[in-house]
């Protein structure tokens, strides 16, 4: 052992990302029926690192070290099985695994992503499986990210893995003719993950940048592989990068929410804006226009506006019209109403809101009354604004959002008491 073990710091999230890659690679070699063995071997490798590196130092190639140990653990298991049960052929390829360099496991990770999002599995299983197997999240971390209780997540994973075994799902990147359809559910999972990070529901923090970054990492994997780099992938990646660029300005020093119009635009991450615009350009090849294209175009308008006042709201409003036509969801309709109000004034916006107000999908959505309250306030009807802000407060939202709503209420009450004759 060396007297001077290297003490190089570890790359952020190395364990998490390497875990995803290792599980994907081992599952590909061992077959998807042995997912559990792959996961166990990877967990063993991480534990071994934790028991060794504090004494021996971080190895020069930590990722390669982990791969080697995980591979050996998997081989040990197989050897054990071979002796005790039927003779089993060692999967070809497992032996030279450790020779492959970092970043050469993209195909396996993508294949895993597609398997996790197989249409045969339920929608909720897509997210849980992707976070577990591709992103290296624990059951508790998945529960945190998906607003579920940990036992429910654990159960969902067990059931989904059984489905994978019984249905013999393939661990492959889909063929070109199936790709577009299969991509849809993969992109959906990424965008859900991103949105959960961008506007964390409930809980103490308003944003979880780590979830946004993980969604972006996964999209980059797809965009980085010629087999899966489709315009919709580029569009979603562009959209997420553009949104992510605003995160530093979205939350103030106290962890409170700052609305788009009030954000300090010098705090937007220009590098991410530029990367987003580049990917948006790459998304423009061909004739396909996915909802992600439209949303990315909207985000690009915001990202490139010099200040809030010079935002091109009429164009954004037209883009929302297109988006509602393509993806008629109540939340999209709500966002469109905001654009309408910005382009044509609060009264027109309120009429647009009224048309979606009784959608049951929005009944528990705090942003519906919150947006309404903001428009009533702009229209000069303070008591109405108060009523809607209170309605928003009664629904579930994160602590910073709650503080934001309470601040609005305090401001309006202050205005009212000043306006009232003494």
């Amino acid at each position, binding site marked *: 052992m060396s007297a001077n073990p290297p003490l190089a710091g570890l790359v952020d999230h190395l364990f998490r990302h390497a875990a995803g890659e290792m599980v994907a690679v081992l599952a590909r070699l061992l077959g998807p029926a042995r997912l559990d063995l792959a996961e166990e071997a990877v967990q063993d490798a*991480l534990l071994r690192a934790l028991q060794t590196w504090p004494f021996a130092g971080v190895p020069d190639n930590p990722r390669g070290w982990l791969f080697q140990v995980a591979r050996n653990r998997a081989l040990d298991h197989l050897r054990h099985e071979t002796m005790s049960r039927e003779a089993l052929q060692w999967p070809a390829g497992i032996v030279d695994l450790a020779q492959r360099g970092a970043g050469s496991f993209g195909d396996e990770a993508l294949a895993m992503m597609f398997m996790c999002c197989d249409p045969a599995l339920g929608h909720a299983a897509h997210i849980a499986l992707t976070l577990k197997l591709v992103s290296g999240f624990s059951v508790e*971390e998945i529960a945190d990210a998906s607003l579920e209780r940990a036992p429910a997540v654990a159960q969902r994973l067990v059931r989904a893995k059984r489905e994978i075994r019984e249905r013999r799902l393939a661990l492959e990147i889909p063929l070109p003719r199936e790709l577009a359809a299969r991509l849809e559910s993969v992109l959906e999972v990424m965008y859900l993950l991103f949105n959960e990070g961008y506007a964390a529901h409930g809980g103490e923090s308003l944003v979880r940048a780590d979830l946004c970054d993980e969604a972006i990492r996964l999209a980059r994997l797809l965009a980085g592989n010629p087999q899966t780099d489709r315009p919709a992938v580029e569009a979603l990646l562009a959209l997420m990068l553009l949104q992510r660029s605003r995160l530093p300005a979205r939350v103030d020093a106290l962890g409170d929410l700052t609305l788009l119009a009030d954000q300090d635009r010098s705090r937007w991450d220009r590098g991410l804006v530029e990367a987003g615009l580049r990917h948006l350009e790459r998304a423009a090849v061909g004739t396909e226009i996915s909802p992600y294209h439209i949303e990315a175009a909207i985000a690009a308008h915001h990202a490139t506006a010099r200040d809030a006042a010079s935002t091109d709201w009429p164009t954004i409003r037209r883009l929302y019209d297109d988006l509602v036509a393509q993806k008629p969801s109540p939340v999209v309709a709500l966002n469109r109403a905001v654009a309408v109000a910005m382009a044509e004034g609060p009264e027109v916006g309120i009429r647009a809101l009224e048309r979606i107000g009784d959608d049951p999908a929005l009944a528990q959505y705090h942003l519906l009354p919150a947006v309404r309250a903001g428009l009533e306030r702009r229209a000069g009807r303070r008591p109405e604004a108060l009523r809607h802000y209170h309605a928003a407060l009664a629904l579930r939202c994160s602590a910073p959002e709650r503080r934001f709503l309470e601040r609005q209420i305090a401001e309006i009450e202050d205005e009212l008491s000043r306006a009232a004759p003494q």
Partner: protein
Amino acid sequence: MAQFLVLARDAGDPRREMSRMSPEELQRIMGKYMAWTTRLRDTGHLQNSNKLRDGEGRVLRRAGGKVTVTDGPFVESKEVLGGYWLIEAADYAAALALLQDHPHIELWPNASLELRQIHDFTQR
């Protein structure tokens, strides 16, 4: 300066606890260990450190002219010796001060550190 051997002992089975942890949590723990060793190295207190192989070891005895070898564990059966650090400090008090925030005892409820000064016969 005196030399001290810091032995890291695990009582119970931290592995079981760790096996439920996520990669992210494990990396965070790793970071704590690395931060401690880095600080000791940077301040010139750390001389060497090594992991001992788990679950093995031999105990030798000689009785009646015959050497018998038995497999370790050489400590109480539930205790595992994980590894050691060799550190330098002025005296026991200074060495103890360096160990106050050691992650090993911060992280694992039943783990312990054993501190032994190496006898230096060149000093009185």
